Each structure stands twice: as structure tokens, then as C-alpha cells.
């Protein structure tokens, strides 16, 4: 049986030379544009929750948001599938916190998820699936579907979970207000540029007339090109993007 002193000596020896475990005080902090980087302190090597609480949230420009994405894909080797799953799960969690099922009128609460043609739409598909698991009753409208395995697989997962896909968009805001208690806007994300093409232009017009709440994934769709309507709450997996017209 080794004595304590011997053990201590061994421990120090191992920690110093052969055991490459880095003590937290000397972890090399990565500074830089990573979204969690600037908040880390040298002394702790990890987040100081007090500092985080007192620091205002940083809003990212479109370029910065794209740079974050690129870093995650290229340096961290995250896959689109991985990030999309985490993003959609986070959004569903946020929605469930903001609009808990017990606070809604219907049981299960009905939600319309409108998915756009890109990655934001993919986030919406993941979000819808997790909302179903959280006890909501989502319906999806997904008019423009990329012909890529990632998206077709996400559609299959939703279909297999009996989440209905609408054949057409309700044409009047009141029709949506009557059927759904919440709308999730997963149409356009931070990489959106240029004009809003059909059918999304019409869809956004309908959404602007809604009285039920809208939860936008990442940015309110069309923000920057159009005025954002009342009642558009924003939520997203990354730090918020700056939008010219803040809600």
C-alpha cells in the first residue's frame, strides 16, 4: 500500500511530465471570432457566468454570422446535419419555453411551421419534429424542397411521425389564426440576400396579417428587405443577427 506522500509525489510527477492533462488555469484560450471565444477568461479557462450576465448580447452582421458558420464547418468539422439538428432542437426548446403547452388553448397546441428553400427550412423541419415530441401538434408547409439527401431525410422523419405537410398555403391570415395557435417562420435565414421570390412573397404577406404569435428562426424572414410586422418574436441557435429593422 503506497503512502500518501509517495502517492502525492507520483501524482505530481505524472501530472508534470507524463500526464498531459492541462490544468484549467493554463488552458490556452482561443481568442477570435468564435462566438464563445471573447467571453472566456484566461484565469478560469472557462466561462465566467457573472461576466456573461453583465455583458450585453453581441449582435452579428450577416458577414459575421457566415464567418461563424464557416469556422464551425471548416475548422471544427461539424457537419450540416449535426448543426441543423442542434439548431432545430434548440429552437423547439426555446419555443416550448416561450409558449409552453400548458399556456396554449388547445391540447395539443397546434403549430404551423413554414419552411423555406434553404438551411433555415431544414432547421424548421428539425424544429417541427422536436415540437411533436414535446407534445405540440405541428403542421408543415414546405413548398420548395431542395433535392438533397439531407432535406429528403428530414422530410421522411417528419412524415413517419405523422406530421402533415400542407399542399397549399392558407390564403387568408384569419384561416391560419383559426387553425393554429403559433406560427414558426423558418423561411429565410441569415444568408438571405436579394428579392423575395414567389411563393414566399405571398406567404410573407399573409403572415404579416396574423394575430397569432410568430416565432422566427434566426431572423424574421424578409427583414432588411421589408418592414417587420408586429408580434414577430425572434429566436435562434446562434447569437442574434443584427437586422436593420429591429423588432
Amino acid at each position, binding site marked *: 500500500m*503506497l503512502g500518501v506522500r509517495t*502517492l502525492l509525489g*507520483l*501524482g505530481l510527477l*505524472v*501530472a508534470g511530465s*507524463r*500526464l*498531459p*492533462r*492541462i490544468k*484549467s488555469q493554463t*488552458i*490556452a*484560450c*482561443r481568442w477570435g471570432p468564435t462566438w464563445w471565444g471573447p467571453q472566456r477568461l484566461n484565469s478560469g*479557462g*472557462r*466561462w465566467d*457566468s457573472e461576466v456573461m450576465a453583465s455583458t450585453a448580447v453581441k449582435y452579428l452582421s450577416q458577414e459575421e454570422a457566415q464567418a461563424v458558420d464557416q469556422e464551425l464547418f471548416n*475548422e*471544427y*468539422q*461539424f*457537419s450540416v*446535419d*449535426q448543426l441543423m*439538428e*442542434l439548431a432545430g*432542437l434548440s429552437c*423547439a*426548446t426555446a419555443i*416550448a*419555453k416561450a409558449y*409552453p403547452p400548458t399556456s396554449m388553448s388547445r391540447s395539443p397546441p397546434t403549430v404551423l411551421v413554414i419552411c423555406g428553400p434553404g438551411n433555415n427550412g431544414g432547421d424548421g423541419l428539425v424544429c417541427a419534429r*422536436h415540437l411533436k*415530441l*414535446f407534445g405540440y401538434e405541428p403542421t408543415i408547409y414546405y413548398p420548395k424542397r431542395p433535392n438533397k439527401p439531407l432535406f*429528403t*431525410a428530414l422530410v*421522411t*422523419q417528419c412524415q*413517419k*411521425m*405523422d406530421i402533415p405537410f400542407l399542399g397549399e398555403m392558407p390564403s387568408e391570415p384569419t384561416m391560419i389564426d383559426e387553425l393554429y395557435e403559433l406560427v414558426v417562420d423558418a423561411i429565410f435565414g441569415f444568408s438571405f440576400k436579394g428579392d423575395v421570390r414567389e411563393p414566399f412573397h405571398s406567404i410573407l404577406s399573409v403572415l404579416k396579417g396574423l394575430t397569432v404569435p410568430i416565432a422566427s428562426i434566426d431572423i424574421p424572414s424578409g427583414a432588411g428587405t421589408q418592414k417587420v410586422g408586429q408580434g414577430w418574436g425572434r429566436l435562434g441557435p446562434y447569437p442574434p443577427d443584427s437586422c436593420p429593422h429591429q423588432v
Partner: protein
Amino acid sequence: MSSAAGPDPTEAPEERRFLSTAEAAALERELLEDYRFGRQQLVELCGHASAVAVTKAFPLPALSRKQRTVLVVCGPEQNGAVGLVCARHLRVFEYEPTIFYPMRSLDLLHRDLTTQCEKMDIPFLSYLPTEVQLINEAYGLVVDAVLGPGVEPGEVGGPCTRALATLKLLSIPLVSLDIPSGWDAETGSDADGLRPDVLVSLAAPKRCAGRFSGRHHFVAGRFVPDDVRRKFALRLPGYTGTDCVAAL
């Protein structure tokens, strides 16, 4: 009530709480082939939920600095990949994970998950001390992500086998992912296995979980669609709110 495909006929359908190894594999195949889940998706969901289970069993505010240090021991197969994801989420949750992953799988999934951990400054040990007291002193808890159902102890190589031998003598808490490494997945016979304090069953508990006698048993299976759960006639406690794990 839908009829189950392949449950043990001696168990009443409503009472089933465990899956056999074959059924667990069939459930995974259904998710991958019928539901078109990607393997990476499932590994990410399981790893994230495993980290959440750790936060429930060992809440951060109650832990001292030393107790927040977590050694995650990863084998070369899927269980190890789940361990890598778990370590990354523990980092995000402000624990201080260190990984021992001696037999590195060459497949892309494992390589990318390793990169993600490295880029988040999670240290990888080049060797694990065989003197268990050193581990007890250096870490607050250990996560066993070495063997999974259907992986034979002999398949994982010397360093993992030696690590498991050392971990058998651990006095700090041990969290096993899916099945305690070394346990027979069916019978739970654990002649060479570990005695974890916490078991996190992935998707659904395996038969050997019936012999688990540690402090906490969680099931990380929120992502399993209801129809699949019904098909395998599983009756498990419900999940509350947005929780991805449920305590059994």
C-alpha cells in the same frame, strides 16, 4: 393498441421495460432505414442527452472545482462516438472534461467528433494511469463510453481493456453510457464489468439494466418517435417539458 414486432412472448406487452440486443439493433435499424435518421444525428442526440443526464445527476452548482473535472473514456465503436459528443456538451455545460480515447476509429464520424473536441480545448490523454488512486484524485467523475451492446471486450484493444480494469477499482462516481462496459447486454452478468453509479440508457434500456443497482438510471430516448416505442411495446416513464432524459 398496436401489436409489437418481436417482443419476448413471456413478457406482457405493457410491462416491457427492456430491449434485447437484437431488438435494440432492430430499433436502430428502423430509425436509420425507415425514418432516414443519419447515424451522426442519432449519435449527436444520444451524446447531448448523456451530458444532460450528467448535469441532472451531478448538478454543477453543487460541485467544487475539482468535482467538475470529468474523465470520459471512449472506445473505438459507436459508444465511443457518443462519448465524444457527450464530452463536447459537458464542456459547453461548463464541466471540465478530459478524454481518454486510445483506439481511434478511422471513420469520418469519429474523426470529425474528435476534431470538434480538440478545437474546444478538451485535452486528450495519451495514456491512462493504471494506479486508480491517481484517477480518483485528478477527477470528480468518470464517464464510461467504452463498450456498447454487441461489442466484445476483446475487440477494443489493450489500452481500453486495461482502462476498464483500472476503472473497476474507482472510488469516484462512474457514469456508464448505454450498458456498463463489460456487462453482458442480455444477462447483466458482470464478472469483468464495472459498477457504475449512474446508467444512461440510450434510446431504451437494455435487458442487463435490470441488474443495475446504482444511484440513478436515466433513459435518453426523447428522440424515439412514439410509433417506434409502441412497435417495440416499451412502457417507460414520460418525459417532462423539453427534457431529453427521464429518470427511471
